């Protein structure tokens, strides 16, 4: 028999995190549906949800649902739209041109990563997961994730120019599309 009180507590504690996760990947229109569906799966498989740290499990489920949604609708990742919107909203005159360009270059670099590599970075940035937890969500071992990070770093260096120059100080990268 499933632990209704335990599930309710987990739901109340983590629903917003899962909602935000979904919002960041599929946008506002589908975020609530993905979050609700994630917890429906969690309820059905509650005995398989790690009780001490359920978030990576929930993110894994939400990730599978978002991937299916994106694939089913044959649409592009809403992340691109969200970031462009965010840049438009925040990239106003108070920002220096170089800073705006640095953001654009960074997001452009992010967009060239594979889905798994990008998700690894996003999980650590937005969801605040450590490497082991992020690895669990994308379905690889911690050592594999560490190797991927090493590879990502090399790729960032290649895309963003010289290693000695931090990305936030970069000059505008004209002609490179944002995402």
């Amino acid at each position: 028999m499933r632990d209704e009180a335990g599930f309710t507590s987990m739901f109340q504690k983590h629903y917003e995190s899962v909602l935000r996760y979904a919002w960041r990947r599929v946008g506002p229109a589908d975020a609530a549906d993905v979050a609700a569906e994630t917890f429906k799966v969690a309820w059905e498989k509650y005995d398989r949800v790690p009780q001490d740290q359920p978030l990576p499990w929930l993110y894994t489920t939400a990730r599978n649902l978002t991937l299916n949604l994106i694939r089913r609708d044959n649409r592009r990742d809403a992340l691109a739209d969200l970031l462009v919107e965010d840049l438009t909203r925040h990239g106003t005159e108070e920002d220096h041109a170089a800073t705006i360009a640095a953001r654009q270059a960074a997001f452009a670099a992010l967009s060239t990563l594979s889905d798994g590599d990008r998700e690894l970075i996003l999980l650590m940035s937005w969801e605040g997961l450590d490497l082991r937890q992020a690895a669990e969500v994308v379905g690889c071992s911690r050592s594999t994730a560490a190797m991927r990070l090493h590879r990502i770093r090399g790729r960032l260096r290649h895309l963003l120019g010289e290693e000695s120059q931090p990305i936030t100080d970069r000059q505008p990268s004209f002609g490179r599309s944002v995402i």
Partner: protein
Amino acid sequence: MTNDLKQLTSLLQAHDPASHVCADPIALSATLDDIIGNPTRTPQTAKRHWSRRQLLTLIPVTAVLAGAAVVLPIVMRPSDVGPITLGPAKALAFAKNGDYIDIRIADPDADPRRYREDFASHGLNVDLQMEPSSPSLVGTMISISSPGKETNYRTDGFEIKDEHGSEWVKRIEGTDCGNMWCMAGVSIPVNLRSPVEIIFGRAARPGERYEIAGDPTAHGEILEGVDLENQTVAEVKRILQQRNGTIESYLEAPPEPFPSAGWDYTEHVLQPISVLDSWYVHEAFGGHNKKSVRLVVASWPR
């Protein structure tokens, strides 16, 4: 983390598109009610879960019932019920539990007639079928139904419905069958009106094919302890090779997050040549013998 990565993550954190998102308490409460209070979702899923496997695993009975397998009886003494007594045919163990009788299997290899004798001695109209099953299901009750009546799976048992109302048969936990569901026994109302049919897993005899295969990653099965989630076909092949296992067939994964009730894997068998090693294993079903599995695969991760 390297300097470049640190800066990228800092930048992303500063541009979190969901930083302003909060859960609406009313919507949150409604969603929770919908999940826990939804009377149909769990039963539908559970029923589909079983029927899906049933479609996969039930084949015409062709086995010759010869040669007895040696199986130890599984009788567990519950702490909060009356003493266990064996039926006259010594095939079943009974324990009075309020208005219910707890029933467990005492002799998994008994002749079906002996089970009927024991049930009849307690005035219960129960028919027990023994099916050769893979190791994780041996000694467990796998299915329960009532001929001509609707049987719904609930979290704590089974509801048998007809025009006169409902009767409840409770599950007795204590088994671990991976992602299959099975029971150590059932608890049946003393005054049960409805006839009940129970399918029980027994060990296959030498050369006998399984009628019901369990979760191949469950205890005692060929892929015991393996987490198949997002493993590639190549990885699973390698693990199987190490364990002298084989792939009986490949099945196409359903396109949706949750397969519709009508999704029948037997209609979606893939030619092995069309399955690439780089594809992902979504799920695995047991095959018709201890060493074989059926893999549900797709080109995308689950």
